[in-house]
């Protein structure tokens, strides 16, 4: 079954939000499942508060980059980035967007919004919005088999990563779980 998996996911945000961190978690999850994985990242000048985007490709690919209108999924940590990266999504793809506002998405995509910044404040971990968005996506896309990995897979990666730092592990798991729970609570996925 794994042999046929081919997924391209774009993760977009700004410097300091932890785009590379959640990209790494997804990539590690792919490795644990024995899937080939390729990611492409932004470093250097652009990391200083500028737009940061990473491309995650799971399955057999030679190129590290996703072409416009080819992404299966989109994780957007800053809603303003939709203008820049929204059109990477293919028709029928899914998007999870960190936003306090209602969504204005032009194309027909399965898009869900979550106010991860507010939830992050609520759990007293203001920098954990990235994990909340990921948890939310795992609930929305993961449980519908639109994502190659599940909540359990990511938890496993976090446990391995922070095994010795109990405090960090607990905080990360809580953020992930908070996002996941939110995906259960919210009304059915809206199609814009």
């Amino acid at each position, binding site marked *: 079954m794994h042999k046929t998996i081919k997924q391209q996911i774009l993760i977009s945000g700004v410097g300091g939000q932890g785009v590379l961190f959640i990209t790494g978690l997804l990539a*590690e999850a*792919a490795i644990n499942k024995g899937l080939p994985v*390729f990611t492409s*990242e932004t470093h250097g000048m652009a990391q200083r508060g500028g737009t940061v985007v990473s491309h995650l490709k799971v399955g057999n*690919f030679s190129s*590290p980059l996703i072409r416009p209108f080819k992404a299966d999924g989109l994780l957007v940590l800053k809603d303003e980035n939709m203008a*820049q990266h929204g059109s990477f999504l293919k028709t029928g793809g899914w998007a999870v967007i960190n936003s306090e506002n209602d969504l204005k998405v032009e194309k027909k995509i399965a898009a869900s919004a979550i106010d991860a910044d507010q939830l992050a404040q609520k759990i007293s971990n203001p920098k954990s919005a990235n994990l909340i968005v990921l948890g939310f996506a795992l609930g929305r896309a993961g449980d519908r088999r639109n994502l190659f990995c599940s909540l359990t897979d990511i938890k496993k990666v976090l446990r391995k990563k922070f095994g010795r730092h109990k405090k960090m592990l607990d905080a990360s798991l809580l953020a992930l779980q908070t996002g996941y729970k939110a995906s259960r609570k919210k009304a059915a996925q809206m199609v814009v």
Partner: protein
Amino acid sequence: MSKSKRRLLLGNEAIARGLIESGCSIATSYPGTPASEILAAVAYFQKEASLSMHTQWAVNEKVAFEIAYAGCQTGLRAAVSMKQVGLNVASDPLMSAAYMGVKGGFVLISADDPGPHSSQTEQDSRLMAMFAKIPVLDPDSPRQAKDLIAVAYKISESFKTPVMVRPTTRVCHSRQDITLGSIPKNKREVKFEKNPARWAATPKFRLQLHKELEEKLSAIADYRPTAPKKLNPKAKSTKAIIASGVAAAHTKDILKELKIRSKMPFYQVIQPFPLHRKFIAHIIDTYEEVLVIEETMGVIEMQLADRYRVKGKLSNTVPKVGELSPEKIEEIVSNFAGLKSEALSIKSAPGRRPTLCPGCPHRASFFAIKKAAPRAIYTSDIGCYTLGLNLGAVDTVLCMGAAISQASGFYHAYKNEEKRPDIVATIGDSTFFHAGVPALIDAVVQKVGFVLVILDNRTTAMTGNQPTPATGHGACGEPTDTVDIESLVQGCGVKFIREGNPYELEKFIPLVKEAVKYSRKRGPAVIISRYPCVIHRARQGGSGETIPVDINEKCDGCGYCIKHFECPALIYHDDKEAKHVSIDPILCTSCGVCLNVCPKGAIVAKE
């Protein structure tokens, strides 16, 4: 951890792993995006496997090159890594080393940045290899980059020549699952054999060495392991596509998707220079039309000597400027294959511009400089502080160290004018060590009236907080001796040297004013603006005294703080009834510097 396990490695980590698995015993570098992580990863693998090797950050790329090169002269395997513009700095030893050749294997890694994402130029290091007359390998992925390091050492030792490996940003900063190999256990003998005719050759012998070099290149052009590969041996057509590097990786996927992989002959070039002799003959003999896709210049293309049949950058079939994105390649390949191009490009929306971090001491320095010398010419340099552009406190950025020499140039240009502008140069601590010192000596000798503010944040911040000569530890975290910036400036002959804390604006602004006044009559004045980088401090788990701030009712939304201080933690609200500024509690580091910024006194310490 079992060694056969797959690990997710960054391209630069894969390169480092390749060096370690090839038994490299001397690795040097100067940080620069996209090459910075290579040496840090060498240090990581070195510690992980408890290897006794020498791994160091050097003061600049030229010094890094020369240290590693001497290592190979003793018979050890050595490597130096840098970004493409760093190679400009190291070009002097490169040209000469190509003539002298090597004893132990010597690999030069020069990382290019098509785009450019984080560089001054889109120059092609492969052309530098051609210029220096050394072979160059062009990997398409982290995995291939690791494999090619081993090949590079083999070529280097078989033909006694330095070998360049040229990754691009998309190789350096991609991550891929990679199977680790083993690390050789046997140690090499360190033995420098004196041979002045070769290692200290005079021009007469250089002519002989040049002849030998041409013979080496000619033999390498027949070296089979690096010959171009036809990736679809059965495909037949009057047309063919040749690609190298990441462009080859994109093309592989695109040919598959366009369903022409079985029809369109496709060759991947691993060694763009010297291009294999038999390959050139085969291509010219076999095909009527050939498309060459490569970054960033037409290095392969120019060696295929048939202007009528070869399409590429020289024929304007492939853009000469910018990164070759997969969508661009899809369009080029479709057109070449006579297919209707379905490649869709997206209009580029402006992203967020990079900015100095909240709490960055550079912001405070720039604010003070603008207050103290509002009409000055501001020369600056390469580093995070280039972002002083956003505050209007940076007028020029040329290359490493040029802040100081350009300040001299502006001074001399205006020397005979009645009205002479003040000149304030800014340079980071690491950049000052790298290339600023000779320029400062020159400014002292010429009595250049300017202020130099050395932004000493105790680290090489932009590239990921590598140590500087003042830091006191090396690449592996080992303690090192230090060079004190103040003594160095004094040693250059500067008479006015002051140190200040930019966080204390009320003292720092008068200090800059004093320096400006001094510089008008008496020559160079240097201020060392000393405060540690916020990111570096956070990573080390430390934080200084914090002063939480708030905005009171005096804020009338004039926007002064947004324009002149530009801290990401200051948020402007363009509400129709009440324009105002607020503090973002997530971003604010409570540095307290903005307390001195608002002209209305609306930014206050939290009760």
